[in-house]
């Protein structure tokens, strides 16, 4: 991509135009520019002259950007409702991911540990590669990875759409706190018929060590999720200043 188009893309993304509209606009502009250049070359200009004449005919980059930005219908949801995309959506997504994880836990409990009071601490007998073991370990991995994956999702969307740092930071902090403060409890006697009951609570802890543990956990989650985003921003800032 030529430098003017690269700058135009950055300008449009920062102004909140949705990436898919930016991509299509730039594709068509590049095609149009190629047609103009060919026309100018047919008129007898040198390649360099044809290129600059084609850019003049295409229009100033500021005008091209303004024409797109003024069409509010091409604004992304990140620009229209950042609070929803970076605060509400991650919380809902994490809730759905955890619901699935808890459902898998409950199902595994019913299927593989029908006699156990809880699915925790009841070792599945047999070799480590036994299906039951793999099932519970995979579910556990998915459960703990969910906040990290959601956090990376926030960072990816924010980077892709050149969103100001404040909203992704809010989302990442929320996800880190949720990931650090939740606790899963399971009991077969909590509901009648011994059907098994799995519950998720959110608590910061009642004692100082517990609070420190949760805060440390939140900090670790925040570091893991925010680090790629931070590196991307630094890299972007460096490439612009260079």
């Amino acid at each position: 991509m030529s430098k003017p188009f690269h700058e135009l893309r950055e300008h449009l993304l920062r102004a909140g135009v949705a990436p898919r509209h930016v991509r299509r606009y730039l594709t068509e502009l590049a095609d149009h520019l190629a047609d103009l250049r060919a026309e100018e070359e047919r008129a007898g200009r040198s390649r360099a002259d044809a290129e600059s004449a084609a850019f003049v005919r295409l229009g100033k980059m500021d005008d091209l950007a303004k024409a797109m930005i003024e069409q509010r219908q091409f604004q992304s949801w990140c620009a229209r409702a950042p609070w929803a995309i970076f605060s509400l959506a991650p919380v809902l997504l994490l809730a759905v991911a955890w619901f699935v994880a808890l459902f898998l836990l409950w199902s595994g409990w019913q299927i593989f540990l029908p006699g156990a009071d809880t699915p925790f601490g009841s070792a599945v007998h047999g070799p480590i590669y036994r299906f039951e073991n793999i099932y519970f370990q995979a579910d556990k991995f998915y459960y703990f990875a969910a906040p990290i994956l959601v956090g990376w999702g926030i960072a990816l969307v924010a980077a892709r759409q050149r969103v100001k740092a404040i909203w992704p930071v809010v989302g990442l902090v929320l996800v880190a706190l949720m990931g650090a403060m939740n606790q899963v409890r399971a009991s077969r006697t909590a509901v009648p018929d011994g059907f098994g009951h799995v519950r998720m609570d959110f608590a910061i802890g009642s004692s100082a060590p517990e609070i420190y543990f949760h805060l440390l956990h939140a900090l670790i989650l925040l570091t893991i999720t925010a680090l790629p985003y931070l590196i991307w921003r630094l890299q972007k800032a460096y490439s612009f200043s260079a």
Partner: protein
Amino acid sequence: MTARETNPNFMNGVPELLILRLLQQEEMYGYEIVQAIRSRTDAVIAVGEGVVYPVLHGLERDGALKSRRKTVNGRSRIYYSVTAIGSHRLADLSETWTNLASAIQKMLAGGQHVEAIP
């Protein structure tokens, strides 16, 4: 070389009207549309070549145009054509502009009373 000047205040709605009119006759891609506008208006109406695309995309989003990708001479291009909604919009815009042009003509000719434009 100087960039072509446009008159934005009076050009509001004009690119839309011209594009719909051109595309009602045949499907075209962006470059063809700009060249057709330039040649058919004897370059009196000059739209910035690149800014035609936001208008096209806006019309497509409103359902007035539809697009399809077509490969011609080894190059993939996006061709636009008018939909039924676009035809209605063209009829409305044409009527408005015809009334406006006739009202301005009357004023220039020295008429005293001009009917309100709907």
